[in-house]
């Protein structure tokens, strides 16, 4: 192996291993706290008014279900204000909204019909008229569980400077391979977000039903309308001003995940691009002691994740395509005489030929990843083999490679200044 490649590989292993070990230690340190949190039963003494904002752009298939899930929330009806925005849809979204608002005239529902202005602007428009002490954003392709809001509101009792409580996102009815992969990914993200919440380093407030303290968000100027990932930008801004973000581990929201690779590519392209832009925008927070673990650890990890993704793709190419091209070239040299080519392959196995040192580290890394995978399932009481073992194998070996490819494409697009629409 080339010396530079070897050094790069060791650095990649070192980086990934450090991150995993750190989070596993964080879990061990907070295990008791997490157990207690699961057992704790807090009763709400006061039900504050909550505005639920649902921006919709061409969501005719899901909007009715989304609104209905909000209407069924286990929370006093007079304390829920629903603001629905039709953001210049060209399909039947508007018609479906009107139908459902008409049949629920006894509920506090405000309908804004506007020209297409984008999600962030729609949220800001709604925020101007929202009366709630808290407000939640709910993407029009997501569905909230009955007790989600009440569980999230309880978090605010404990901390007056808590600005955002994020939910535990789940993929709704995963059917395709891509959706099943995302289901596994979301489970891991949920577990990680819970740990991040304990360390005050949450860096994203997901679109599906993040709950905000209105006063703080208004004070900070609302959502950034020029940002590709306004849900991440607001989290960075909240962190910058030293407000809190926590995750409510059992407040479930079900979201519709892209069902094919094309959809996934489009979504992740926007996420990655937005994330990189936000990392650059908040670069002054990097390794800044004033921001505690957020500045010293989480932001560098966010950046390192992209660098490691690029490295992973490089290694994938190096260890897959390089030998493949060499073998194709070898076959070409002998005029494609495949029979004798196969006979000439040396099938002698010598255990001493294996790079056991490197393998030991790679397997330790894989084992640590499996522990996180197991804990992620335990965190949400999900069965590991719900969709069969084959998905897990593909998830570990191909899904992250695919995501890494997307992040490399994004990086290239950013370098060459390719623009991205929301």
């Amino acid at each position, binding site marked *: 192996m080339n010396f530079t490649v070897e050094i790069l590989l060791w650095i990649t292993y070192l980086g990934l291993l450090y991150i995993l070990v750190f989070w596993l*230690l*964080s879990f061990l340190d907070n295990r008791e706290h997490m157990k207690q949190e699961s057992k704790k039963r807090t009763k709400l003494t006061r039900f504050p008014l909550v505005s639920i904002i649902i921006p919709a752009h061409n969501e005719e298939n899901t909007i009715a279900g989304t609104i209905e899930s909000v209407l069924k929330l286990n929370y006093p009806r007079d304390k829920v204000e629903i603001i629905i925005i039709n953001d210049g849809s060209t399909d039947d979204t508007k018609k479906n909204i009107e139908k459902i608002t008409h049949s629920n005239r006894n509920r506090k529902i405000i309908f804004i019909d506007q020209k297409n202005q984008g999600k962030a602007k729609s949220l800001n428009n709604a925020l101007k008229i929202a009366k709630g002490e808290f407000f939640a954003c709910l993407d029009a392709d997501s569905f909230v569980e009955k007790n989600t809001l009440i569980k999230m509101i309880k978090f605010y009792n404990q*901390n007056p400077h808590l600005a955002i409580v994020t939910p535990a996102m789940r993929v709704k009815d995963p059917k395709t391979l891509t959706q099943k992969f995302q289901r596994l990914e979301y489970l891991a993200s949920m577990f990680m977000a819970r740990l991040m919440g304990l360390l005050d380093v949450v860096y994203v407030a997901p679109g599906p039903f993040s709950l905000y303290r209105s006063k703080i968000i208004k004070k900070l100027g609302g959502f950034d309308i020029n940002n590709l990932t306004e849900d991440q930008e607001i989290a960075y801004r909240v962190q910058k001003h030293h407000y809190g973000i926590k995750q409510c581990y059992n407040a479930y929201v079900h979201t519709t995940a892209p069902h094919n690779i094309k959809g996934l590519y489009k979504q992740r392209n926007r996420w990655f691009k937005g994330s990189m832009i936000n990392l650059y925008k908040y670069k002054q927070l990097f390794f800044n*002691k004033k921001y*505690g*673990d957020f500045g010293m650890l989480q932001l560098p990890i966010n950046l390192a994740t992209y660098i490691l993704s690029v490295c992973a793709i490089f290694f994938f190419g190096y260890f897959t395509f390089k030998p493949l091209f060499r073998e194709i070239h070898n076959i070409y*040299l002998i005029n494609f005489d495949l029979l004798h080519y196969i006979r*000439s392959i040396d099938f002698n196995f010598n255990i001493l*030929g294996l790079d056991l040192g490197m393998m030991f580290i790679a397997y330790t890394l894989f084992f640590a990843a499996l522990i996180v995978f197991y804990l992620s399932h335990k965190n949400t009481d999900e069965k590991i083999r719900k969709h069969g073992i084959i998905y897990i194998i593909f998830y570990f070996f191909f899904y992250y490679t695919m995501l890494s490819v997307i992040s490399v494409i994004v990086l290239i697009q950013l370098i060459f200044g390719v623009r991205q629409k929301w």
Partner: protein
Amino acid sequence: MVKQRKQKPTNQTKLIERKISIERYIIAGTITLLIFALGLSMGFVLDYKRITWIEEQSKAQELDYQSLQLQYLYLNTIDDTEKSCHILGNTLQTTLITLSETLEDLEKFEKDTKLNKKEYNTLLRKFTINNLKYWLFAEKSKKLCNMDAVTLLYFFSRENCPICPNQGMVLSYFKTLLGEDLLVFPIDVDLKQNEPIIQLLESIYNIQSYPTIVIEDITYSRVVEKEELGKIICNIYNSPNNHCDKYLE
């Protein structure tokens, strides 16, 4: 379990209490380094195991060579060469296969090693000498037993010859195709500074570039492609085997 260091309160840190989990950073770093140290140690232990294994192989090669010499001596003293030459040919063939496999492993190990370059170089020299001993032995045996085999010297460089693997591939192909009728002796010219015999051979065969192959005292200093090499080799046999048919048309 792990204590967290609290930041001194400033105007900006009055809202949420920022903490730096410094002890956790250190513990995580220590565990990571321990795992790395363990991995590296395994690599070093493996490296020494490899050297021991190659040395054992080398001893076995020495013994095989002595056995072959004994057979040769015996053949020189008796008349029944037909039966005994067959045994000698087979033994030589088996030994050369083992030698070539060990040499391949050795070259790979030498490439991977971080600490024991010197030891591996010594072993590579040892194997190159063995190779040349076998080459001389094969030439002698060919004459004694009238073997219809082609011997081929292949000069290559691992360090300064990116096209050498192309020649290596074509040679492996013919070795698979022709089996014991083709005896290939690879010579790593990167060892010539320490091994005067390589310099001597280069001078005898007038070798200035790599790859070079020498077949029956004729030097080819370039990549000899499949078709051409097939013709060269097959034309040397007194009774070529079936695989040579297409090269002799």
